[in-house]
């Protein structure tokens, strides 16, 4: 493990370099050959050429969206695993993504052909409601939260919400048309404007998460320990849930429900970094970005003609890991 402060800082820098490299590769990769200099020119000296258009409207937004969504989901997952002390926690598994997705679909259904830029607030509402319900299910019964019950309750809520989503889509072809591209869990075809609108929420979510990192580390040791250290655990948890809702809601508003990033990344990070959330969170953000960028690139490389939604790639890799955790790392 990397434990000393300077090693950790150095590692974080290396990861950031990798993230930058991933962004460059993602922008360069595609049918139209585009180099780094072309990218610089497209933003510095825009002349409306075909390459410039491809870069500004397709490649760069896609790469940024992948990095942003990956970072949001990974941090949200890390926080959830911390406050529930549940290795299976993830915004996808616990139904938060499904809640946000259902809220967005309902919005489109009720208000008609809404632009994707207005998805975010509704996604937050949906995510918040789902989070509350699932948390309630996880804490019912005697004693403390039970990890398995929380995960299974979350999966049931997700199943319920996604059947509502499907019902809405079946009932309204117009909704289906507006939303189909979005619901598959994909970062294709997002525009920069959407990312700009989301970014304030994402920043608040990240800031909140980082501000709470000390408290979450203490919570990982147990509720009693945390309150023994003078922490208002209820307040910490509420604020942490708020940041999860902001981050997961933003991710869903941009890319639709993408699963398992929030599950896998924090575990991998913890393996190298240890238990201190002040380091886990920034690492999770950067590595989450790298992983989703990588998954998106793989989706494009493996089957170049077909656009595989990136959510499929993350599920193929992430679900076996989920099974591994469920078998070996979860107590009743």
């Amino acid at each position, binding site marked *: 493990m990397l434990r000393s402060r300077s090693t950790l800082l150095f590692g974080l820098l290396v990861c950031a370099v990798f993230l930058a490299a991933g962004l460059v590769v993602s922008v360069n990769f595609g049918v139209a050959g585009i180099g780094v200099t072309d990218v610089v020119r497209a933003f510095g000296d825009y002349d409306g050429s075909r390459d410039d258009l491809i870069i500004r409207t397709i490649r760069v937004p896609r790469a940024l969206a992948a990095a942003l969504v990956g970072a949001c989901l990974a941090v949200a997952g890390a926080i959830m695993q911390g406050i529930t002390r549940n290795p299976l926690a993830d915004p996808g598994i616990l139904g938060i993504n499904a809640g946000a997705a259902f809220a967005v679909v309902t919005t489109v259904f009720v208000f008609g052909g809404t632009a994707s830029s207005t998805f975010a607030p509704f996604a937050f509402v949906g995510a918040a409601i789902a989070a509350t319900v699932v948390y309630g299910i996880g804490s019912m*019964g*005697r004693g403390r939260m039970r990890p398995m019950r929380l995960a*299974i309750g979350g999966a049931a809520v997700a199943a319920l919400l996604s*059947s509502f989503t499907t019902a809405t889509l079946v009932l309204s072809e117009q909704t289906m048309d507006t939303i189909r591209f979005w619901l598959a869990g994909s970062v294709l075809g997002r525009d920069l404007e959407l990312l700009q609108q989301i970014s304030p929420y994402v920043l608040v979510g990240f800031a909140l998460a980082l501000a709470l990192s000390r408290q979450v580390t203490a919570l990982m040791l147990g509720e009693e320990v945390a309150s023994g250290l003078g922490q208002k655990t209820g307040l910490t948890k509420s604020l942490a849930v708020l940041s999860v809702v902001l981050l997961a809601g933003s991710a869903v508003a941009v890319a639709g429900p993408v699963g398992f990033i929030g599950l896998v990344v924090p575990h991998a990070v913890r393996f190298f970094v240890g238990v201190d959330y002040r380091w886990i969170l920034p690492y999770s953000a950067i590595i989450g970005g790298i992983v989703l960028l990588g998954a998106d690139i793989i989706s494009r490389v493996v089957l170049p003609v077909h656009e595989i939604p990136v959510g499929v790639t993350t599920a*193929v890799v992430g679900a076996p890991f989920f*099974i591994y955790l469920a078998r070996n790392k979860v107590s009743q």
Partner: protein
Amino acid sequence: MARLAPIASRPKAREATLRAGPVSLRLNLRSVLIICVLSLAAFAGLVANVGYGEYPVSPVEVVRTLVGLGDDGGHAFVVNSLRLPRALVAVAVGAALGVSGVILQGLTRNDLAAPDIVGINAGASLAAVSLIVVAPAASIVYLQPAALAGAFLAAGLLYLLAWRRKGSPLRLVLVGIGLSAVAGAGATLLIAVGEIEQASVALVWLAGSVYGRGWDDFYSFTPWLLVFFPLALLLSRHLAAMNLGDNVARALGLPVEKVRGLLLLTSVGLAGTAVATAGTIGFVALMAPHIARHLVGPAYGGLIPAAAATGATIVVGADFVGRALFAPVELPAGIVTAVLGAPFFLYLLYRNRNG
């Protein structure tokens, strides 16, 4: 741990014994009555389904046409060729799912087990979607064996990953959730890669619906039912013994491994072929056994037919609701059952909250 009340603790039921030479059958009169009522409910659902639609046929006319008593208004074509096969498929699929769920819950001694929840249906779906996308020319007849193979593969994985080590009931469900996620991603992948025509066929089919099912589907499904239903009834006695635990069952002289294998074969076979016929109609195999157990008690002789009738009623009712609720748009029956079944599942979790 399952809430299967011990048989002895229930009030002594009124029983009758049927004898035919060397064979005798003990019947619990109350169970027989309830099973009859449930079957009537399923039949009523079938009649309602056949009568409802753009060209309405009154229930009396439906029954008359079904039994072949005259054909006053010329409904025969609509009833027999268009609507009846669909309704029959719904009934058959529901019955298969109900029985599959009863056996799986008994076998795993797990309240929350059902083939769709532990990932067996997802395996069947993935296999069937593969067949549709990869070999579109293949006849519909191959869909059943393919789905069956997928179901068995998923069951085998489940056994290896979660069951063999006598894991907790919740762990089985969790591993099933993971398996479903893998298989679901695989199916989505195939649909994204496949030709648009096959992909849309696969999508419609995946939604879990009896929409557009005809006599072909019904006839390719029934042979499997005719194998697996009698098998389930024959094995029902052993299921009760298995429920007491492996050691007790062995002490009662049961070849435990063989019986377990046969029971698993029956349960997975019913689920797999049901999925091949109608896609994944979720939560029926979870709800039907619980409702049936509530009505007829835990003795499997009555429980299996009761679960079959309950499952049939649920699916045929869900299909009716899906058709009628937002007519002319149709909701797939699988959506209706999920909207009912997911809260039911949460209720089961709540009931076992201190378990």
